[in-house]
């Protein structure tokens, strides 16, 4: 019972993080057809933002607000400087974003120096859940991730900007013809995805050491999530995260992490073989 609850909470932690990181990818990869290999760096930037804030004596909470802003600014710059020129050249975009990823990593190393940086969690200790004790910060993380995803869903489905995004994604030319500034919508949607990845970075920062390369590992998993779940759908994103995060957490309890990665990848390949458009695909409409 205790093991089951712990595994479930571990899974929820991972699912929450993967969903937040995957959101930006589902927007850029699923909807704009851009393979952004610098997406992991948005998470890294978010984590560094928390470290930076704390190094000036700021609280974790201030860092949590700063992180998505910092990542969104980096995302905005990447879109404006590089990606907007390459929407028609997807292969060039892969190379360009890979280069950008290296530049961001090296810049972080130049500014903050070598080695891992510590981030202090806002709450310490464990919470007694009667059947099991679980770190309080991780429970907080699960709640924040769930709230953030809920807000994303409301934004996409219920707001006028969400409608603009869904419209541009379905038919960019026609969206422009009805009076939507599609360049602006692309830029904002991209920066938004980057910001949410930055939030994920802030959330994981107390659980790990903050390193310039920390985003790389999340990038691969986030791509699995988007491809398995079905690119371009928020429901697919959550389904994909649940699958990848759930499987990883359950297997992690039984065997070594590298074997787990291999098995998860294998199962992901099998799923995509059976359902090429992912578990829940909505074919080009963010829902």
């Amino acid at each position, binding site marked *: 019972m205790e093991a089951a609850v712990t595994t479930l909470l571990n899974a929820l932690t991972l699912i929450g993080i993967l969903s937040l990181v995957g959101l930006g990818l589902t927007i850029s990869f699923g909807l704009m057809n851009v393979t952004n290999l610098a997406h992991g760096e948005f998470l890294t930037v978010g984590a560094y933002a928390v470290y930076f804030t704390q190094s000036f004596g700021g609280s974790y909470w201030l860092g949590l607000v700063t992180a998505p802003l910092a990542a969104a600014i980096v995302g905005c710059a990447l879109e404006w400087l590089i990606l907007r020129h390459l929407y028609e050249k997807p292969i060039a975009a892969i190379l360009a974003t890979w280069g950008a990823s290296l530049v961001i990593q090296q810049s972080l190393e130049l500014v903050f120096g070598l080695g891992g940086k510590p981030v202090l969690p806002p709450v310490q200790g464990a919470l007694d859940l009667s059947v099991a004790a679980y770190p309080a910060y991780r429970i907080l993380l699960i709640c924040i991730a769930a709230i953030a995803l809920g807000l994303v869903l409301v934004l996409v489905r219920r707001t006028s900007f969400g409608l603009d995004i869904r419209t541009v994604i379905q038919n960019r030319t026609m969206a422009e013809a*009805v*009076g939507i500034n599609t360049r602006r919508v692309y830029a904002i949607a991209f920066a938004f995805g980057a910001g949410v990845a930055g939030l994920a970075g802030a959330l994981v920062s107390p659980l790990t050491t903050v390193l310039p390369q920390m985003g790389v590992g999340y990038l691969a998993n986030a791509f699995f999530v988007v491809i398995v779940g079905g690119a371009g759908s928020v429901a697919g994103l959550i389904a994909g995260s649940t699958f990848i995060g759930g499987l990883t957490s359950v297997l992690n309890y039984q065997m070594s992490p590298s074997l787990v990665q291999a098995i998860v990848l294998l199962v992901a390949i099998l799923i995509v073989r059976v359902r090429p458009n992912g578990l829940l695909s909505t074919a080009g409409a963010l829902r």
Partner: protein
Amino acid sequence: MLVVSNIRAGYDQIPVLHGVALSVTAGEVVALLGRNGAGKTTLLRTLAGELPVRGGLVRLDSQDVTKIRAYRRARAGIAHVPQGRGIFGRLTVEENLEVGTRAAIGRRKADVRDEVYEIFPVLRERRNQLAGTFSGGQQQMLAIARALCGQPKVLLLDEPSEGIQPNIVQQIAELVLKLAADKGIAVLLVEQNLEFVLHAASRCLVMDKGRIVHTGLTTEFRNEALLKELLAL
């Protein structure tokens, strides 16, 4: 209202329009005729801002819109209903119309969606249905309704009768005529269906090889010999 002088445009390196001039006044319906490949659709897409203008001028009232991007032309009052209608199939009817109101941003404050629903009661009944599930005729109605939500001054219609049952074609022709008259919209129409043209348009322009080669009142086009000569039907 819409004045086009000597415009040239095309796709990448291939010029299609070689100096087209025309004007459409408020409340007037003008039809563009011509064989396939004459440049009719290219002309509408250029006027809508989808293709860049390589020379000449496009003016809307007194505003020069030659160089501005498509979304700003839409906001200036040029609505485009393209071939294939371009509705957003994965949005509901209501959402399609809401997106249509974006073209009125900065120019008109009132939301005319209720008024548009009065004109198209069928759309109100199905406001929560996904637009992609509609038949061709309903989609065409929706595309026109969406254009009206932007309160346009000029409406560019590309083959509104394409793929639509004959009894609905008649309805749409009457609707276009009525909208132009009631709302003072200048309508420029590309159409292969002569019944539609004879019913709705007051003037016709004939295009060939990227130029306008003949202009006349619609009544003149009831003469079959002339039609054959101009359109090589």
